[in-house]
C-alpha cells in the first residue's frame, strides 16, 4: 500500500440547507427562499440571499451547497450576458429553464449539489415555474418547492393548489387559481410552518414577485432558533 492515509474522509460537498418555493399564477409568479445559511448544527449567517435574478422576467432560487450554487449562478449570468450580446434581448424563462437543465447535466459526473426552482413569466406573460434535481431533470409545473424544508411544504401546496393531472388530454394549464396577494400570503404561511420543524429553514424569508409591472421584493421575519 502506497500510503495508508491516502483516503482521508475529506468531502468536496457540504449541505448549507435552505428552502425554496415558487408559485405561478395567470399573470404573476412568486419566488421565495429563506435567508439562513447553515452547516451541520451551526448557523453560519442569518442574512444570505438564495435568490438570483437572471433576466428581467426570470428568477432563480437555489439551496444545497452554497459554493456550487454561487458557481452555478455565475455560469448562468455569464451565459445570459453572452445571449444578450448575441440576440439583443432578454432570454425567456423557458429558455433559461432549458439552459439551467443543460448546465446541471454538463456536470453529471461531478454534480452541482444545488436544488433549484426557476420562476418567472413566459413569452405570453403567463406565470411559469420549473423545478429541478441536482443533475438537470426538470419539469414545468404550476408550483414547486425544493430544499431542506420541501418535504414539509410540498403536501401543503398540493392540498391548497392541486394541479391538474399531467395525463389529461387536451393538456390543462398548471397555473394556480390564486390571486397574487393570496399566493404571497400562502408563501408566508408555508415558510412560517417549515421554520417550526426544519432547523435549516428560518431567520427570514425573501419573497420576489414577478408580474407585468416588473419585480417586487418583500421580507418576512421567521423563527431565529
Amino acid at each position, binding site marked *: 500500500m*502506497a*500510503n495508508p*492515509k*491516502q*483516503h*482521508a474522509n*475529506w*468531502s*468536496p*460537498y*457540504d449541505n*448549507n440547507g435552505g428552502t425554496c418555493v415558487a408559485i405561478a399564477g395567470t399573470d404573476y409568479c412568486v419566488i421565495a427562499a429563506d435567508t439562513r*445559511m447553515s*452547516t451541520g448544527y*451551526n448557523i*453560519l*449567517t442569518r*442574512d*444570505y440571499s438564495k435568490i438570483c435574478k437572471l433576466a428581467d422576467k426570470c428568477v432563480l432560487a437555489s439551496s444545497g*451547497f*452554497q*459554493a456550487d450554487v*454561487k*458557481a452555478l449562478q455565475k455560469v448562468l449570468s455569464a451565459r445570459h450576458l453572452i445571449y444578450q450580446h448575441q440576440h439583443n434581448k432578454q432570454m425567456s424563462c423557458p429558455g433559461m429553464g432549458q439552459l439551467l437543465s443543460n448546465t446541471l447535466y454538463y456536470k453529471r459526473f*461531478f454534480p452541482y449539489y444545488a436544488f433549484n426552482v426557476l420562476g418567472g413569466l413566459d413569452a405570453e406573460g403567463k406565470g411559469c415555474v420549473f423545478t429541478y434535481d441536482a443533475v438537470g431533470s426538470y419539469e414545468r409545473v404550476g408550483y414547486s418547492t425544493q430544499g431542506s424544508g420541501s418535504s414539509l411544504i410540498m403536501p401543503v401546496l398540493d392540498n391548497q393548489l392541486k394541479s391538474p393531472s399531467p395525463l389529461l388530454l387536451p393538456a390543462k394549464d398548471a397555473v394556480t387559481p390564486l390571486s397574487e396577494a393570496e399566493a404571497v400570503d400562502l408563501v408566508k404561511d408555508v415558510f412560517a410552518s417549515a421554520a417550526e420543524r426544519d432547523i435549516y429553514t428560518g431567520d427570514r424569508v425573501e419573497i420576489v414577485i414577478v408580474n407585468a409591472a416588473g419585480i417586487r421584493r418583500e421580507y418576512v421575519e421567521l423563527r431565529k432558533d
Partner: protein
Amino acid sequence: MTSVQGLVASPDADSQRTLYPYVTGTSVVGVKYKDGILLAADTGASYGSTLRYKSVERIKAIGKHSLLGASGEISDFQEILRYLDELIIYDDMWDDGNSLGPKEVHNYLNRVMYNRRNKFNPLWNSLVLGGVKNGEKYLGTVNMIGVHYEDNHVATGFGNHLARPILRDEWKEDMSFEDAVKLLEKCMLVLLYRDRSAINKMQIAKITDEGTTFYPAYSLKTFWGFSSFANPTKGAEGSW
C-alpha cells in the same frame, strides 16, 4: 538513467494532495466596529495535538485595504499569501492609482478556494477577510470547499461554536474601538478555556480608512478557580 527512489518523482508517482492537515492554527474571530474591522487570533500552531509553534502570526495585511486571518494548515496559508502577493504586485504595476479592495481580494480567495476543491486538492484553511475601502467596511469568510459569506461578525472553527453566540448577543452597530476589543477578548478567553489547541498569546489587528495597525501579542488574564472547573460533574445528574 537511475534515480534514487523517492527523491525524484516518477511520472506515474501518486500526486500529492492535502487530504489531511499537518500544522494547524485554531480559530480566528473578526468584528466590524465604528471605524473599521478588528481581527483576533492566537499565535499557536499545532502539529496534531502537539503545540508545535507558539508565535506564528496568523493575521496578515493584504494590499492597502485588507486584513487576512487564517485557521487551518499553516503551509497552505503561506502559499495563499504568496498568491496574494503576486496578485497585489501585478495590480500595482498598472500604476493607475487603482488598488484592490477587500471585496476584490475576498472574491479572488473564494475562486481560488473553490477551484482547488474542484481539483480535489484543497487549501486546508478557513479564512477571514476584513477591510475598509472608501469608508466602506467589509468582513467576510471562506473555507476550504469554497463556502463563503459576509456578516457583521465572523469566526472560524471552534469560534463558530463558542464565539459567535457571544457576538450575536453583544455585538452592536458602530461599537467603539475599546468596546470591540473587550468583546473580542471575551470571545478569545472563552476559546482559551474550552478549545484545547488555543493558547494564551493572542494578537489583535485593526484596519480603518487610515490603514492597518498590528498590536503586539499579549496574554489574557485567566481565572481557573471556577468551581465548575475544579469539579465539573458536581451537581450533574447520573451515577458517575
